[in-house]
């Protein structure tokens, strides 16, 4: 099944009944799929007039208690930042799918992964964090869509799923998790349903009273600390005896994994560390791996964003190398293997050493 | 005193009143005046002139004052 369709089907199976989005390549297949599938299950599909309108419809459906999703690609995700910040401040759940493309600006429609900063460091205003899940193929697109909705509801926060144009287009076999009956979804005793039989509720993020915003932000931070403590996800492969740990996520990780397999058959001890949550980043785990003289080789489909989290995790414990290709160009496993060989030799011919 | 012309009365919440004086503008029988003593917020609120002088008409309970009052500060009563 095609990646974009996988996300749509997974969302429906996870109990999502409201989708609002705007067409943008390379994820148009997702709203197109849901425009029919949502109606099958009695859900609501609106093609909003913009990404801005769509994220605000998400906000409205979320505050009303619905399980709701939107999707877009990089420039459209820029437009959604206001809404995401508001949802974080108002503590509203929602899932945002970003099928990344080349940027900045209008960029191109090829698979790039240059939205890491945008996803993990904001990109809206204020002191908030957004959990970010990075699948690396169709099976994970399905599973992590379920996880995204659960995290969003559990923590009352927007959650982002970061794919890319390649992942959205590729077709792979998928085994979906079981259908969730919407009756079994967690009850939301904070949602707006009309004040019949209770006091009226107001949900807002503007807090003008003395010290109110200070307190609210401290409370939000406690939530983010809990997420950091409990929701980190990652995968390691061949790390136990590795001399080089390659760090990559998403599509880049699939390429790196192929390179790792090729180099292993040559006798080069390469391991893979693949973060699945980009926020919260599994810093402690990576820090543990970066010892015993190992080298850490970061590979990204951009000019260096996740590498900063690697530096935060590893510091001076290990030599850190970086190889990144921007603009939607996708290197082959052979090119990544060349980078890793260069890392092994330390000759700086492919990629570069990160000086701290 | 002309008892039978007094068909209504109002009660103005002087702490809610912000002294906009629109009620004074609209009252057809001139039953509301400015109370120069300030309320807690520092406004000179409106005050109902309950006593009807010779030649004046009393409150008719028309509720124009309450209708135009932005603060919902006026309750209106009509004689049964």
């Amino acid at each position, binding site marked *: 099944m095609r990646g974009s369709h996988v996300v749509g089907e997974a969302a429906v199976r996870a109990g999502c009944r409201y989708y609002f989005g705007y067409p943008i390549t390379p994820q148009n297949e997702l709203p197109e799929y849901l425009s029919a599938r949502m109606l099958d299950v009695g859900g609501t599909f*609106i093609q909003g*007039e913009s990404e801005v309108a769509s994220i605000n419809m998400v906000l*409205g459906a979320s505050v*009303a208690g619905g399980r709701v999703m939107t999707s877009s690609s990089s420039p459209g995700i820029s437009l959604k930042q206001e809404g995401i910040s508001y949802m974080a401040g108002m503590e509203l759940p929602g899932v945002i799918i970003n099928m990344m493309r080349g940027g900045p600006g209008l960029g191109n429609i090829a698979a790039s992964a240059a939205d890491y900063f945008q996803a993990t460091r904001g990109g809206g205003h204020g002191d908030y964090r957004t959990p970010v899940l990075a699948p690396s193929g169709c099976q994970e697109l399905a599973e992590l869509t379920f996880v995204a909705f659960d995290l969003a509801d559990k923590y009352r926060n927007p959650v982002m799923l970061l794919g890319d144009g390649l992942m959205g287009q590729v077709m792979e076999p998928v085994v979906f998790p079981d259908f969730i009956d919407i009756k079994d979804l967690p009850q939301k005793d904070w949602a707006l349903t009309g*004040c019949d039989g209770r006091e009226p509720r107001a949900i807002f993020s503007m807090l003008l009273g003395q010290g109110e915003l200070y307190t609210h932000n401290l409370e939000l931070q406690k939530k983010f600390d809990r997420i950091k403590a409990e929701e980190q996800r990652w995968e390691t492969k061949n790390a136990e005896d590795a001399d080089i740990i390659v760090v990559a996520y998403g599509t880049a990780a699939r390429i790196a994994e192929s390179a790792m397999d090729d180099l292993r058959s040559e006798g080069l001890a390469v391991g893979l560390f693949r973060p699945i949550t980009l926020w919260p980043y599994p810093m402690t785990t990576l820090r543990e791996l970066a010892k015993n003289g190992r080298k850490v080789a970061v590979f990204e489909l951009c000019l260096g964003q996740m590498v900063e989290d690697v530096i935060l995790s590893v510091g001076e414990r290990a030599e850190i190398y970086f190889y990144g290709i921007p603009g939607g160009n996708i290197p082959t496993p052979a090119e990544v293997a060349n980078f890793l060989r260069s890392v092994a030799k330390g000759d700086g011919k492919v990629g570069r050493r990160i000086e701290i | *005193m002309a008892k039978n012309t007094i068909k209504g009365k109002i009660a103005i919440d002087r702490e809610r009143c912000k002294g*906009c*004086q629109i009620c004074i503008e609209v009252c057809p029988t001139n039953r509301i005046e400015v109370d120069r003593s300030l309320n807690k917020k520092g406004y000179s609120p409106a005050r109902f002139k309950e006593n009807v002088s010779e030649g004046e008409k009393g409150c008719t309970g028309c509720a124009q004052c309450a209708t135009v009052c932005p603060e919902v500060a006026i309750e209106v009563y009509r004689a049964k």
Partner: protein
Amino acid sequence: MSAEVAYKQVFGWPESLKKNPTHYCPGCGHSIAHRLVAECLDELGLREKTIGVPPVGCSVLAYNYFNFDMVEAPHGRALAVATGVKRVHPDKIVLTYQGDGDLAAIGTAETIHAANRGERITTIFINNAIYGMTGGQMAPTTVLGQNATTAPGGRDPMLHGQPIDISRMLAISNGVVYVERCAVSSFKHIRKAKKAIKKAFQCQLDDLGFSIVELLSPCPTNWKMTPKAAWAWVNEEMVKTYPLGVIKDETGYEDKK
């Protein structure tokens, strides 16, 4: 004397309005508009099934005044948020309460498209021809010659364009069934405004389409006038640019009378 006469109360506090004192200026139209909305919801028995979306503007804190469920929206986005709410709760009454910047500047796209989709939402549009909350900047509805802090010397068509008539623009759309412009600046206008608001809610109850009532509203503070003068300015000057009356009515309610 009064003790001998038995009285009954004919005007009191609507249930859909909380008793909190408002932060609105003396003579502001918001307080009246709030009360009219509250009275209509009370009379239609809708308080407990209403969800409201206030704007960003002077009435951003409307959830402190309205006594029903409310959700804040980013500036201009109220009708998109309301769309999301209404789609989850189609059986509830969803209203937006917006100012001229919220509805006709930053929110123009969300306004036009929610209206065009015929969302079963009622919008109360407070037009005071100025940006109140932020201190008196020009609004899209500021009239020609009217002073504003970002249009010193008054609105000039060459520099600033003409004032926008968003209600008439919305009326063109087939999804919009009822558009009326009223004012809250005199006893007679307030009575008419209340009827219009009630009719707009009835449109939603009868599942007819999108309805909007524009209320010309005085802003004494930013117009730099007394309340009396501001109310008069609406009645004498503002109506020249924004004439009062029904702009579109496809409800059929008048025919049934």
